[in-house]
């Protein structure tokens, strides 16, 4: 599904990502973990076209998408959420998700219909599945941070992605919201055969749902494998897990 090979990116001489290779199979749930500043978000931005790698390639379903524009990559079936909730703050919750549907269903070039009336049922259905139904008419930017993250997930899901990249999807959520969101993701992943690549600091979440974990440290992948393999890796314990579970 997703094939990353030899990605390298430096910012003014500071190497944020170096020689990162990773492959994610269709339907797989993969996690990238690592301490703050390890380069997780940078890796995501390299995959989604927000920054261009210095070296290396990214393939999506066999097609080279290295350096393609984000909107083009999105159109090929990739969805993403950002680390900091990234929504349309002054639009209502309904409009946030509806806009994503308009874009995905290619209604964006319609200059004449009333946007109010389009994709209403689909939008409400998606909001309900996220638990945001009652807040449909609320202004997006006034939601709690956890709800904003859920809303952003809704925006990403509206695009019916084949692969979804989530940068710390549950950061800022209450434990209840976290459980709901994880449940939703697992359900959608199995229903739609969605491929999932996510980063997360909450190790309970990671070990609960990931089939595969890659550990990033100072821009390099130091371990990759099944959760039990990664948990047992001495190098990983030393630089990351050890310090948290001490």
């Amino acid at each position, binding site marked *: 599904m997703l094939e990353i090979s030899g990605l390298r990116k430096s910012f003014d001489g500071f190497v944020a990502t170096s020689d990162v290779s990773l492959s994610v199979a269709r339907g797989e749930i993969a996690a990238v973990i690592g301490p703050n500043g390890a380069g997780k978000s940078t890796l995501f931005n390299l995959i989604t076209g927000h920054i261009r790698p210095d070296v290396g390639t990214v393939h999506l379903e066999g097609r080279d998408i290295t350096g393609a524009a984000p909107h083009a990559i999105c159109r090929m079936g990739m969805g993403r959420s950002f680390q900091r909730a990234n929504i349309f703050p002054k*639009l209502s919750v309904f409009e946030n998700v509806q806009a994503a549907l308009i874009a995905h269903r290619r209604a964006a070039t319609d200059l004449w219909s009333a946007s109010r009336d389009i994709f209403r049922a689909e939008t409400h259905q998606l909001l309900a599945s996220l638990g945001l139904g009652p807040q449909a008419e609320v202004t997006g930017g006034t939601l709690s941070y956890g709800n904003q993250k859920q809303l952003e997930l809704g925006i990403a899901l509206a695009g019916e992605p084949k692969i979804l990249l989530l940068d710390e999807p549950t950061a800022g959520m209450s434990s209840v919201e976290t459980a709901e969101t994880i449940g939703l993701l697992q359900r959608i992943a199995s229903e739609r055969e969605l491929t999932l690549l996510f980063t997360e600091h909450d190790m309970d979440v990671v070990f609960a749902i990931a089939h595969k974990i890659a550990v990033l440290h100072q821009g390099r992948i130091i371990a990759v494998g099944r959760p039990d393999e990664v948990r047992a890796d001495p190098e990983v314990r030393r630089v990351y897990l050890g310090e948290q579970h001490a």
Partner: protein
Amino acid sequence: MTTRLPRTIPWMTIAFALALFIPIFGTRFYTSVATDVLILGLFATSLNLLLGTTGLVSFGHAAYFAIGAYVCAIAMKTFEVPFLLALPLAGLAAGAAALVFGYFCVRLTKIYFAMLTLAFAQIVWAICFKWNDVTGGEQGFNNVPYPDLAWMEVLPGLSRMRVGELYFYVTLVVVCLCLYVMRRITNSPFGRILTTIRENPERAEFVGIDVRRFELAAFVIAGLFAGLAGALFGIFNRGVFPDFGYWAKSAEVLIMVILGGMGQFFGPLVGAFTLVVLNQQITSYTEYWPLVLGLLLIVLLYAFPAGLLGTIADLVKSLRGRRNA
């Protein structure tokens, strides 16, 4: 089945109907002010498609107003093209210019975008100023003919009206049609996408929107309607001058939009009305109009940051909320 009363009052229809009576009951002066307000209101509304809807700040919107004005005036006077053809031609010419200039502008963001729109507008101004043979240069392009409106005199109530008054009706119809179209566009799925670009271009890009292309589309549509406004204004003014495209004109229309409220579709129209009337009133008392205008704007912007219509809309909303509570 229950019949429901209309939820909102049809303000647009009422305003249109009332406006029909202006030349009948008003003096020539009022009719002329009303024509001015309508045209500048259209111009300001076209800018708001960029500013309020898409979140793009253009410092050079007057360029498209000027192009429309010159194209229509030159077509009608030099080439004797009928108004019904010259008007759309002016809109298309302005839209085409917006397509070319906009292609470069949307490649830049924020203040750099604004600066490039200004640069292109100054180029347009310089061409109008120097190209004597076609534009009349510094002296302007004078004696622009009125369209042939004699046929309108057969309409009930319009016999014996002066051409300036008949032209008010032409303006009213054209402006209302343009506003209707722009309102449809603003409320369409395309318009919704423009608001997502205003709110968060990064996110818009990652729901699959080619942000630059949509910005360019908005720029062209805004330029086209500015061109139509310019065409109407050149005839109303009986002459077209390089100043139509000068940066001061771009600033004036920007002020109208902000003053009226860029969050409301009709905000720019209210802004145009306010500025035209203030201009009339203050210039009759003092020659320091720009100074007074400046002070007034500072006060208004501090008191009503959402603009005049925006403030009223907020007030109505909070009153309704209290009543329903």
